[in-house]
C-alpha cells in the first residue's frame, strides 16, 4: 500500500519534537481565534504569512493546518455558548447547540461537537490521504483549457451557488479579480490597474486584502451595529461526560455528517454551509426525538453538522493540494503561502514535495488528537476567552492588523490601502456581500488568467479549445448549470406553489 507507506513516512516527519511544537502552537492558536468572535483562520493565517520567510515549509504548513483545524473546534464552542456563530460553517451548530446550553446541557453539546469533530476530522483526513493520489492521477491529464474550465466551475460554485445571492457573490468575486490584477502582468511586464503609482506595481498583498476585509471591515461593522441586540454567554452547565444515550444518539450522526461533509468539501465547490445544513436536515428527519429540535436542543442536531463541518474542512484540502484550487478564503491564503515558498500546488506536488504533503497530512491526524484534548478537559480556559470585552478585543485586533500590514514594507500607503479595503469590507458586510470570494478571486483569478492565456496561445487564439475538449466542455456545462440551475428551480417552485393558492379573490 503506497499511501500507507507515504503516510508512515509523513508521521516520521510530523513526529519530530519541533514539528510537534508547531502543531501544538497552531492548534492552540486556532482554537483561541475560533473561540473569539471577529477573528477567523483566514485572517490569522494571513497575519502569520511573514513566517514563511523564516521557517521551513513543513513547519509553517503544520502551523497553518493546526490553525485551520483548531478554528473549527473553537468556533463551535462560541456557537454553543454565545449563539454567535464564529464562522458561517458553525451557524447550524448554534441552532441546536445554544438551545442545549440554555436547557442546561451545554457540557454534552460541547462534548459531542468536540468528539464528533475528532471522528469526522480523522475520517476526513484519511479521505485526503487516500483520495489525493487518485485525484492526482486524474489531474495529470488536465491541460490549460481544462484547468481554466475547472477554475470557472470553482468560481461559480464558491460565489454563486453558495451564499444568499449569486449576483452579490459574483460581484465580490469580480472585485477580487480586479484586486488580483493590480500590478505588473507577469507575461508581458505591463503594469495594470496601478493608477500610475509605483506603490501598486507589486500588486496588493494578500495580507493587506485579508486583514482589510476581515479585521478592519469587521471592526467597523461591529462598531456601527452597537444598537443591535447583544448575545449573552450561557454559563457552561452539565457534565462533559456524555451519557450512554447521548453516545448512542451521537455516533451515527457523526458518521453521517462525515459522509456528507467530506465529499462535498472535496469537490471543487468547497464550502461548509451546504454540508452542515444538509446534515442538519437529515438528522432532523431521522431523529426519534423530533420534539427536541428547536426547543430544548437535540444532540443529533449538534453532532451531525459539527462532523460535517470538520469533514468538509478536511475535504477542501484535496483540491487545494492536488489541483492548486482553493475553495475557501483560508485555503486561498494557504495557497499564497505555497507561492511564497515558490511551490506550485498541483498534481506534481505529491511527488515533488512528498515530505511536505505527507508530513502535513500526518500532522492533521496529530492536530485532531491535540484538539480534542485542548477542547474538552481545557474547555474552561476557552470559555474565559469569551469574556474578553468587545472594546478591547476589537481595538486589539486593529493593533495586530497594523503589525501585520505596516510590517510588510513600513509604507503608510499600505495602511491607506488597508483602510480603503476595510471600508469596502464594511460596506460588503453591511449590504450582505460575501467577503470570501474576494480573497478567492484575487488569488485564483491570476492563476485562471494564466491558464486561459496558455490555452489560447496553444490553440493559436481559437476559443473553441474550451468547448471542443470534452472534459473542459463538461466542466463549463456544470458551471453553467450551477449558475442558472438554481434560478430556474426557484422559478418552477414559485410557479408551482403559487398556482393553487392564487385562485381566491382574484378575477
Amino acid at each position: 500500500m503506497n499511501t500507507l507507506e507515504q503516510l508512515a513516512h509523513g508521521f516520521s516527519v510530523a513526529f519530530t519534537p519541533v514539528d510537534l511544537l508547531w502543531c501544538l502552537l497552531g492548534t492552540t492558536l486556532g482554537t483561541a481565534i475560533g473561540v473569539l468572535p471577529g477573528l477567523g483562520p483566514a485572517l490569522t493565517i494571513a497575519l502569520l504569512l511573514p513566517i514563511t520567510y523564516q521557517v521551513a515549509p513543513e513547519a509553517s504548513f503544520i502551523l497553518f493546518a493546526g490553525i485551520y483545524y483548531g478554528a473549527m473546534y473553537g468556533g463551535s464552542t462560541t456557537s454553543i455558548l454565545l449563539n454567535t456563530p464564529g464562522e458561517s460553517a458553525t451557524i447550524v451548530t448554534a441552532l441546536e447547540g445554544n438551545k442545549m446550553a440554555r436547557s442546561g446541557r451545554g457540557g454534552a453539546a460541547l462534548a459531542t461537537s468536540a468528539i464528533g469533530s475528532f471522528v469526522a476530522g480523522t475520517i476526513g483526513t484519511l479521505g485526503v490521504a487516500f483520495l489525493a493520489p487518485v485525484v492526482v492521477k486524474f489531474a495529470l491529464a488536465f491541460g490549460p483549457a481544462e484547468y481554466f474550465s475547472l477554475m470557472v466551475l470553482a468560481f461559480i460554485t464558491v460565489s454563486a451557488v453558495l451564499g444568499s445571492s449569486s449576483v452579490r457573490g459574483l460581484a465580490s468575486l469580480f472585485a477580487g479579480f480586479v484586486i488580483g490584477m493590480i500590478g505588473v502582468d507577469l507575461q508581458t511586464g505591463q503594469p495594470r490597474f496601478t493608477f500610475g503609482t509605483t506603490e501598486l506595481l507589486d500588486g496588493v498583498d494578500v495580507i493587506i486584502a485579508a486583514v482589510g476585509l476581515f479585521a478592519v471591515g469587521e471592526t467597523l461593522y461591529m462598531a456601527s451595529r452597537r444598537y443591535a441586540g447583544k448575545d449573552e454567554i450561557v454559563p457552561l452547565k452539565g457534565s462533559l461526560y456524555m451519557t450512554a444515550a447521548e453516545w448512542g444518539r451521537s455516533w451515527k450522526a457523526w458518521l453521517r455528517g462525515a459522509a456528507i461533509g467530506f465529499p462535498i468539501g472535496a469537490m471543487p465547490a468547497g464550502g461548509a454551509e451546504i454540508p452542515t445544513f444538509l446534515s442538519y436536515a437529515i438528522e432532523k428527519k431521522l431523529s426519534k426525538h423530533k420534539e427536541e429540535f428547536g426547543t430544548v436542543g437535540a444532540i443529533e442536531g449538534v453532532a451531525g453538522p459539527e462532523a460535517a463541518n470538520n469533514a468538509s474542512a478536511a475535504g477542501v484540502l484535496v483540491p487545494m493540494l492536488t489541483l492548486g484550487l482553493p475553495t475557501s478564503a483560508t485555503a486561498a491564503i494557504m495557497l499564497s503561502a505555497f507561492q511564497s515558498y515558490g511551490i506550485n500546488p498541483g498534481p506534481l506536488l505529491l511527488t515533488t514535495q512528498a515530505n511536505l504533503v505527507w508530513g502535513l497530512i500526518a500532522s492533521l491526524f496529530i492536530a485532531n488528537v491535540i484538539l480534542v484534548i485542548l477542547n474538552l478537559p481545557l474547555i474552561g480556559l476557552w470559555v474565559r476567552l469569551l469574556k474578553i470585552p468587545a472594546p478591547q478585543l476589537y481595538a486589539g485586533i486593529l493593533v495586530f492588523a497594523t503589525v501585520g500590514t505596516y510590517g510588510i514594507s513600513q509604507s503608510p500607503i499600505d495602511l491607506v490601502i488597508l483602510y480603503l479595503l476595510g471600508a469596502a469590507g464594511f460596506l460588503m458586510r453591511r449590504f450582505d456581500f460575501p467577503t470570501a470570494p474576494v480573497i478567492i478571486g484575487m488569488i485564483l483569478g491570476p492563476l485562471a488568467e494564466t491558464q486561459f492565456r496558455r490555452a489560447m496561445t496553444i490553440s493559436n487564439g481559437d476559443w473553441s479549445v474550451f468547448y471542443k475538449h470534452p472534459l473542459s466542455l463538461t466542466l463549463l456545462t456544470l458551471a453553467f448549470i450551477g449558475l442558472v440551475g438554481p434560478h430556474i428551480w426557484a422559478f418552477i417552485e414559485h410557479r408551482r406553489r403559487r398556482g393553487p393558492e392564487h385562485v381566491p379573490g382574484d378575477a
Partner: protein
Amino acid sequence: MSTINQPTAPSRLAVPELLVGIGLLACAGAVAWQTLAIPVSPLYSKVGPTVFPYLTMVGLVVLSLLLILAAFRGGWQPEEEKETPTDWKAMGFVVIGLVANLLLIRLLGFTAASVIMFVLVCYGFGSRHTLRDALTGLVLALAAYFGFARALGVNIGAGFIENQLNTAIDAIAGALGA
C-alpha cells in the same frame, strides 16, 4: 395598525442599495479607464494583458446593473438589518483611531501610535476606562512588537518607546554578558 409583516409590500426604490449598485458601476468604469491605459504590444494582440480586464469589466457592468435593478425592486436587505440604526458615533471614533494611527505611526513609532488608536477604538466601542485602556494597549502593542514582529522578522517602524526599550534591553544583555 401597522402592516410591516404584510408579505406583498409594495416594492419601492431602495436608495442605499441603489448607491451600492452605482458604486460598483463606477468601479467598472475605473476598470475600463485603467484597462485602456494598459499599453498593448502588437505581439500579444490575441490574448494580451487586456483580455481578462475587459472580461472582468463586462462582468462588473452586468452585475452592477443587476444590483441597480434589484434596488429598484425594493432592495435586498432584510428588515432587521434596515431597522437597526447605525451607530455613527462609535464608527466615527474607530475611524479617527485608524486615521490617527496612519498619521502618527511614522512620527511616534508603532507602539505610541497603537496606544492612541487602541484608546480611541475602545472609547468608540463604549469603554470609559481610558487610563486602563491605555495601559492595556501599551502592553498589547509591546507584546505585538517584541513577540510578533520580532519573531516573524517583520521590521516594523521603531519610535521613541521602542528605541528606549531596545537600548535598555541591549544594555541589560551587555551587562549580563560581561
